[in-house]
């Protein structure tokens, strides 16, 4: 049976938010890579990922819980075989996840994660952070104070 991405990420976010290092590590691929293209940051492996959580000034913001996450790409696709059996095509393993998180300063940011699973573990994570801004957004972008 194909891995249910919601079950996977429920376990992962629960482990991270609880600070359960061993549980989080068990869900991560040995060749895990995380990237934040906005800043050019890239980390490799579980230890670098976890070190960022531990070193976060004021405490790392909690990861959005799965019920709050919008998954895109999770739809299963099915094929009818020549023998009239219905078989799943290759299980989708690439997702876009949308959620929000509140930082210690009270600001809310949208978090977009492009995720790839491999061997039922987290293999690639590319994250983007978009701040909530006043409408009209175009004007907010034009006057945005880059910090």
């Amino acid at each position: 049976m194909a891995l249910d991405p919601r079950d996977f990420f429920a376990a992962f976010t629960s482990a991270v938010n609880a600070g359960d290092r061993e549980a989080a590590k068990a869900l991560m691929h040995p060749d895990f890579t995380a990237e934040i293209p906005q800043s050019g940051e890239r980390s490799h492996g579980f230890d670098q990922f976890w070190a960022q959580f531990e070193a976060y000034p004021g405490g790392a913001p909690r990861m959005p819980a799965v019920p709050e996450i919008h998954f895109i790409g999770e739809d299963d696709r099915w094929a009818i075989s020549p023998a009239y059996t219905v078989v799943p095509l290759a299980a989708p393993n690439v997702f876009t996840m949308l959620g929000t998180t509140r930082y210690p300063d009270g600001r809310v940011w949208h978090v977009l994660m492009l995720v790839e699973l491999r061997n039922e573990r987290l293999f690639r994570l590319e994250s983007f952070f978009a701040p909530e801004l006043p409408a009209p957004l175009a004007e907010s972008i034009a006057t945005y104070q880059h910090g």
Partner: protein
Amino acid sequence: MPESRQDFFRRYVEAIAERDFAALEPMIHPDYVGEYPQSGERFRGFAALRFQLEQYPGGLPAARFDDARTKILGEEERWAISPGYTVLPLTGPERYTTLSRAPYPDGSRWWVVSIITLKDDKVWRAETYFAPEFEPPEWRKGIVEIVPRD
């Protein structure tokens, strides 16, 4: 031969960047809804899309599809073998995540992530996020590798 989704999104991004509304309008579904969840804005139909592109303060970002960082997720074709051994494209929700990096007229760069749903081969829903570039925080520099962005 039908146009690939890659080519479709190339035309879409370029039509927006160049304000080529004659090229853009046929790509937009009559029931189009666009959203900016960061600000809670929602606009309906091509006219509203055109208006907000025309009124963009400071000029539109110069997004280009040829940027090496541009990508589309969800573009892979899925196929089924029918009982008659013919190969058929599967139907399903045509949702794509497009990712591009846009230089703005003020010199800043923003990552633009769009969740786009196609219907009848046109853009039916577009949920777009804008993520500003920023310098890596000092406290993370000892932990992560910094990859040049340009």
